[in-house]
């Protein structure tokens, strides 16, 4: 996992670009970039399961949606909530849901795992869709963005677009750093071992269920982090956030960017939002174009977009011969 110099330089350049973005990007693009980063966090959280632990979940949106609903439900109607309370609470709600659901679904494997995660996310969807709990199919509004209140002191203002952007950016960097650390740790190595050969891990003495549950809860909590930010960004939540369509969408982001790499997940989320945005300006049938791109990537770039530079270099070297 050590980075080569060019990768490091590129990463720094991207970070610098992001930190200065509000100075040259217009309001519209600042908000779009915030959405990309939020979905990037969401995609990275799923990649922990799919790309690192080998657990293909089709129900990951449940944890995204649960945190989003949690903020909307906890926040008072006519006052801003306290960020330092409502954000941990929302993340905790998702983590707890992941713990309970994980205890059940992780007893299954392969196609059955995909099926039961799908079933659970559908249950969560209908829980919010068909009951008055969260405003039914209309969803609920979050009237005020939470305030970072410490006593009387407000460190920043999330209601202001640029500050919200920086808040999301910092959370993104923290989540990325956390994931990279965890993946390098003994725990992370076990997860990758489970993906490679779970049977062998068991005969080496690893009770793999506990590790998978740990990964599932961590992924749920991080998806919740993204869900929280998403609710704050758009100011309302609907049952669609927990739908299996949303779960499929985030899985596509991970596959598009390249599984098994947090950077890949970020690239996947970013390109998905960018493509959606540009295709929908071109035509009403942008979903068709989107599908084409996904099929093309899966067919010609099995490692995802993150494998593109390596592919191009390979082609150039082969095509250009020796210099």
């Amino acid at each position, binding site marked *: 996992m050590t980075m080569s110099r060019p990768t490091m330089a590129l990463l720094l350049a991207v970070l610098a670009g992001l930190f200065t973005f509000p100075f040259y990007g217009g309001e519209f693009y600042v908000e779009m970039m915030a959405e990309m980063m939020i979905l990037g966090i969401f995609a990275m959280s799923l990649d922990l399961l799919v790309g690192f632990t080998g657990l293909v979940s089709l129900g990951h949106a449940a944890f995204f949606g649960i945190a989003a609903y949690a903020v909307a439900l906890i926040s008072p109607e006519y006052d801003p909530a306290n960020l330092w309370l409502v954000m941990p609470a929302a993340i905790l709600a998702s983590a707890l849901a992941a713990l309970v659901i994980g205890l059940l679904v992780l007893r299954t494997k392969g196609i059955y795992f995909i099926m039961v995660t799908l079933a659970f996310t559908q249950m969560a969807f209908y829980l919010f869709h068909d009951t008055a709990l969260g405003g039914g199919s209309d969803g609920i509004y979050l009237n005020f963005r939470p305030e970072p209140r410490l006593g009387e002191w407000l460190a920043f203002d999330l209601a202001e677009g640029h500050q919200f952007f920086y808040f999301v950016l910092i959370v993104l960097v923290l989540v990325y750093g956390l994931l990279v650390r965890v993946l390098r740790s003994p725990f992370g190595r076990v997860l990758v071992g489970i993906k490679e050969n779970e049977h062998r891990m068991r*005969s080496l003495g690893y009770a793999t269920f506990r590790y998978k549950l740990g990964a599932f809860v961590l992924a749920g909590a991080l998806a919740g982090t993204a869900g929280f930010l998403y609710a704050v960004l758009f100011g309302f939540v609907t049952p669609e956030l927990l739908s299996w369509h949303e779960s499929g969408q985030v899985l596509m982001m991970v596959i598009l960017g390249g599984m098994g790499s947090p950077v890949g997940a970020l690239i996947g989320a970013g390109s998905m939002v960018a493509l959606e945005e540009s295709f929908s300006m071109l035509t009403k049938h942008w979903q068709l174009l989107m599908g084409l791109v996904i099929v093309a990537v899966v067919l010609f770039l099995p490692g995802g977009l993150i494998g593109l530079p390596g592919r191009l270099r390979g082609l150039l070297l082969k095509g250009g011969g020796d210099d």
Partner: protein
Amino acid sequence: MTEALLVAERLSRRFGGLSANEDVSITLERGKLHALLGPNGAGKSTCINLLSGDLPPSSGQIHYKGRDITRLSAPQRSRVGIGRSYQRTNIFGGFTVLENCRLAAQSRRQRAWRLFTDACALGDTLDKARAVIAEAGLAGREDRIAGTLSHGEQRQLEIAMVLATDADVLLLDEPLAGMGSEEATKMVALLDRLRRTRAILLVEHDMDAVFAVADTITVLVNGQLLASGSPDRIRANVEVQQAYLGDEAPASAVSGCGAPPRAPARAAPPAGTRDGSATCRA
């Protein structure tokens, strides 16, 4: 006085109507190498699977250091000290040789998950991994991707991984199969050394190797224990000669070229052995 580490009593395992193991009793002692022989399909791998916890027995008991471990899962048995290798190479093909062994060594330090330490900063597991790699004859191969090793080297890696878990009991399913003769000789010497501080159960078709290193030999046929005893007694056992070694004189079979014996795949055990009257325990 030898120390009985693993004692299995009347283990049975059925697959539908097939009795893959029937009333198999085996004792593994520290300092002893116990070989398990039998024609193809005799139930040797099934026996190892029962002892390692890969398969639950249909009936019977297993004790480890006096404690009943019949209901322990495979990871639990590994953690108490029972390690195994597989007949079909079972490694992390996409990882380096070092990472294969490092993961195996790390399994001994699982109490704290340590989410934020760098796995490679845990020097003791890394040292352990390097040591067992050298012990299994793979020094210099640490950074190779395990899947790209030769077949024989992958077999050596299997052994290195078991060693990295510090197991007291080694259950080895045909570890020499597919190794070159030079590696096999080295591996036999390694087993000979390992035996001093451990108990080893060795499934092996190479008769030369078996009769050279085994302290005790158990012969399985059709899932049943046909005979068990010292190499000399097994060599002299008429039923073993008839049921397993065929018409060949056992002397020629055991001093032959080392090729797997052409045993009848499903020879019926001679009558009268089921109650164990013809078996003897070391």
